[in-house]
């Protein structure tokens, strides 16, 4: 089975190719079911590989399958090769597993869209790219997937490309990611220069022999790449805008899988990070913690149901980088998995709400939906409890794990993480109340300026929210189940219950925490409950004033400043280059031309129009040159 690891990405690729050719003929919904089946088959193969790996001893759980030589030149030997080890297969399991669920969900969600089959073509291509990223046995195959998911993300964000905002958001995502990709490329150049290979086994194996400077350079350039893909400060900008894409895309790409690629990369090269200068992990931890807090504050004041979740994703990814910076690689992966469960659940739930509300996304026009959409509401509430850190739901365990290691690194980082946890509980409770509880506000024609002011007012009263079809609801139920029990893969009671840690141990650096677990856990639970209580007081009981300052709704004005800079001084600088090109560089040429023609005017008398005269002139010129070379310089 291990040798069949290549099938994992190959099946979605096959799906992509087939739908490209026959998608329109298959049509709605067959193309969707076909794409779902391909990812499901890929999941089945992954399970087979997983079982195979399990049956081996811990040391033997690394298997490389080489398909063919990709770029063999000079000392650069790059193969298209796949690495099956506990880390990559863990990733594959949840990518294909959740991927299948979301494909299925999308069959319902995208039903009736005029570009139905095209959507699934992109979705399969995305699954292929993501699996290449994860399974690549060298940095370049990972980079192939890395850029591939970026391109798919671009296609899918701007899927409804007639909409200006969707087209712009897609472009923004691609370009911002390219900034990070520059970092990824630099990391590859440094790695190849230092160890003569891009294979992870070689790079990580040589970590002990690297100078601190080189190791730091590789680690931090990788981190820059990760900041782009995983939406960390200062490159997070694209992710909130990415919500322009259809909701299944937000769930799959911009919550569960693609955005975790940066975390995966950092864990993959963790041996390098371990030997780099101590400031490198500290930078990563600080960026992670800062992003977590920053995004959480913004989420508090968003009114778009998806924007809340988008900022929440940025914030949760910040946690994962906090974990990496604190040396808790397994905790980062643990949180990545549980987050994939509950965040996919929340996004799909939000999609179900949007679907049921006929494309309304403004939470101020929702409310009281729990009676009309009972399954969506019930599963969403489970997701809420998981992300808010309420035990025994999945998110509690993984978040607690991270906070524990952050405390080891520095109590300040722990405190930032704790405040973020408080805010998370608060804004998620706010969302649940606004959407599912309180008064029904969707008939309110006077609901003030929502996210979609373009909605026809008259249509409001006819709006009848309804529960979604089975293929949308079924994934919600499965994900809700996983969000409840997902923590079980790594319970902190003893070494035997820390299954994920012992599974990953052969390939990932594992540190032990020295801090007492229980007191910190109790504090975290208390903080989470306080957050929930506060939100209930404000939004359900109306006992306290709503605090949603404009600056938070505006995301601290960061996005706007960047756009203003790009549109202002940035654009002027670009225009300056164009001006210089036309007036300085080309101007010099035209100046010379003018000079020549002015001179030529004066010597026009020489221009007899007689070809023989010209020939004589050219001939004598050549002769003179020859003479000069032979006589004057020739015998040098």
């Amino acid at each position, binding site marked *: 089975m291990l040798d069949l690891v290549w099938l994992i990405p190959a099946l979605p690729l096959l799906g992509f190719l087939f739908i490209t050719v026959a998608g329109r003929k298959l049509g709605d919904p067959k193309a969707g079911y076909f794409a779902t089946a391909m990812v499901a088959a890929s999941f089945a193969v992954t399970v087979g590989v997983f079982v195979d790996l399990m049956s081996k001893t811990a040391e033997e759980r690394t298997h490389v399958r080489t398909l063919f030589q990709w770029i063999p030149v000079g000392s650069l030997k790059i193969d298209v090769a796949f690495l099956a080890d506990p880390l990559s297969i863990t990733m594959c399991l949840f990518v294909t597993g959740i991927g299948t669920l979301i494909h299925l969900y999308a069959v319902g969600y995208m039903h009736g869209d005029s570009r139905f089959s095209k959507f699934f073509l992109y979705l399969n291509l995305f699954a292929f790219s993501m699996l290449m990223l994860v399974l690549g046995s060298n940095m370049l195959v990972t980079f192939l997937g890395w850029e591939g998911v970026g391109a798919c993300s671009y296609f899918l964000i701007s899927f409804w490309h007639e909409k200006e905002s969707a087209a712009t958001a897609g472009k923004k995502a691609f370009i911002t990611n390219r900034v990070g990709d520059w970092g990824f490329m630099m990391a590859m150049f440094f790695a190849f220069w230092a160890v003569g290979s891009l294979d992870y086994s070689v790079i990580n194996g040589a970590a002990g022999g690297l100078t601190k400077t080189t190791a730091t350079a590789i680690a931090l350039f990788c981190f820059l790449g990760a900041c782009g893909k995983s939406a960390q400060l200062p490159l997070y900008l694209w992710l909130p805008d990415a919500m322009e894409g259809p909701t299944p895309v937000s769930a799959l790409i911009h919550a569960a899988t693609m955005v975790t690629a940066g975390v995966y990369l950092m864990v993959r090269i963790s041996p390098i990070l371990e030997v780099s200068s101590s400031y490198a992990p500290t930078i990563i931890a600080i960026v992670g913690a800062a992003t977590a807090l920053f995004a959480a504050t913004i989420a508090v004041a968003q009114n778009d149901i998806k924007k809340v979740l988008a900022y929440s994703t940025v914030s949760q990814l910040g946690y994962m980088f906090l974990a990496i910076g604190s040396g808790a690689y397994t905790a980062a992966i643990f949180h990545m998995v549980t987050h994939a469960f509950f965040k996919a659940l929340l996004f799909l739930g939000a999609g179900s709400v949007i679907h049921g509300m006929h494309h309304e996304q403004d939470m101020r026009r929702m409310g009281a939906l729990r009676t009309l959409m009972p399954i969506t509401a019930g599963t969403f509430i489970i997701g809420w409890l998981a992300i808010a850190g309420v035990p025994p739901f999945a998110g509690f365990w993984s978040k607690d794990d991270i906070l524990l290691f952050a405390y080891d690194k520095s109590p300040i980082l722990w405190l930032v993480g704790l405040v973020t946890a408080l805010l998370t509980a608060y804004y998620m409770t706010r969302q649940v109340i606004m959407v599912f509880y309180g008064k029904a506000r969707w008939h309110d024609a006077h609901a003030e300026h929502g996210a979609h002011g373009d909605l026809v007012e008259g249509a409001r009263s006819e709006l009848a929210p309804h529960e979604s079809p089975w293929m949308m609801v079924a994934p919600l139920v499965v994900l809700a189940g996983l969000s409840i029990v997902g923590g079980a893969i790594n319970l902190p009671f003893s070494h035997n219950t820390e299954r994920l840690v012992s599974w990953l141990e052969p390939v990932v650096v594992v540190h032990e925490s020295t801090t007492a677990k229980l007191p910190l856990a109790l504090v975290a639970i208390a903080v989470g409950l306080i957050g929930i209580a506060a939100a209930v007081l404000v939004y359900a009981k109306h006992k306290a004033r709503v605090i949603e300052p404009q600056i938070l709704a505006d995301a601290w004005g960061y996005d706007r400043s960047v756009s203003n800079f790009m549109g202002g001084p940035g654009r002027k600088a670009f*225009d300056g280059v164009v001006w210089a090109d036309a007036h300085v560089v080309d101007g*010099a040429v035209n100046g010379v031309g003018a000079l020549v023609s002015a001179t030529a005017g004066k010597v026009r008398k020489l221009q007899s129009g007689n070809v023989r005269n010209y020939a004589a002139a050219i001939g004598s010129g050549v002769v003179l040159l020859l003479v000069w070379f032979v006589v004057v310089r020739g015998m040098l």
Partner: protein
Amino acid sequence: MIEFPILTLLVLVPAVGALLVAVISKRQPDLVKVTALLTSVLTGGMSLWVLFAFKSHNPDFQFVSQHTWIKPWGISWHLGVDGISLFLVVLTGVLFPLVIAGVDPHHDHKRYLSWMLLLEAGVMGSFISLDLFLFFVFFEIVLVPMYFLIGGWGYDNRVYAATKFFLFTMVGSAFMLVGIIATAVLAKADDGRVTFDLIKIAENATFAASTGRWLFFAFAIAFAVKVPLFPLHTWLPDAHTQAPTGGSVILAAVLLKMGTYGLLRFGVYLFPEAAVWARPLFLTLAVIGVLWGAVAATMQTDLKRLVAYSSVAHLGFIVLGTFALTTTAITGSVLQNISHGLSTGALFLLVGMIYERRHTREISKLKGLQKVAPVFAAAFMVVMLSSIGLPGLNGFVGEFMILIGSFATARWWVVVAASGVILAAVYLLWAYQRVFHGEPDEDNKAFPELRWKEASLLLPFLALIVFTGVFPKPMLNRIEPSVNKLLDHVEQNSDWQQPEPLEPVISEEGEG
């Protein structure tokens, strides 16, 4: 046994075709077209034959044919092909029939086709000449048909553009002519007889350092204009924009490559010491070109001009790789010659198709084309992603090899040049958004979908774009040996030392 003179025929067949087309009566337009098509297809077939008969893992010139031409001056008809020129020959051979069959010049077919075939003969000759004088002749021949193609079948401002193109290149050529004559004369000192033979001069002649540098620059200026290297690039946007579609495709795909090819063959090979000495200058100009071209491309309002400026950026990468002087970088440059030819050639075809439909290239007048012509948009998207350098497509392979290969010998230049990949995404995606996204307005609502004929013209490009991106190995196997030989030559004739390839380090036990 006399070998079949395949290379000679590669030049002669299109030349004869040009002559035939020129003498056939105007009243037989079909015969004109058939003749042109047949000769170009025949040439293309022969170039493919060369490709398949070419021995890989062999660094030497193959299919060599040598005949004395002007004995007293040591000028000979000396042709040969090696890994550095092989794919340029094939690209030329394959591209011309496609352009001749697929792009309609709209008027005066006879003269147009005649010039096209003469152009093909000149380009072919340039890529396979191993004699300085012969090379110069072909290099100059190319100018004439291109001048008339731009001037005769171009757009509004074609005369200005054609003249500018001609003058720029002529000035460069004048330097090269002096350089060639001086080189031959100076090289004579060693064996008493004048020779223009490239290999003889390169292998035997020794120039004093200062002389070699002067001569190198005489050649390099001509090639720098052709590439074009910043700041000698301003003829290119004008020429590209004003040239007819067929001319633009040829110009981008093969004509510019005469510059990058020339820098390797007649710059680095002939004057290794000078090339090593001049590295910082060329690396710097190349990197400036990468950024300058990209920034200028971003702000263009004319789609064709945008693609033209993107060429300046891409060619900057190729020059960077050339002067990095490592196996990986130069092999990458040689490969990128081809990749750029495919992707930019295809971009010009697509822009040409847009012009045919809308009679404008102004980005602001185009809108929402993806909605009305999704297949056309998809083709444009694939080509665009190849130009952006998406892994899995051809553009990435060469670009990556250039950058990673140059890192060891030109680190800071690479650090800066790599940011060009960000800008490439900026200018192309922004243009794509403005042209293809959005709701089409009145003028663009009736934009026709890709036609079968157009699709069959684009298909070879798309196939090669994917093939080269996924499986470049067969090409690398043919290019690399010649590059290694060239670098050995450089190392023997200068104090250049390519950094030793690292053996992958494997320590017994990694951390954890």
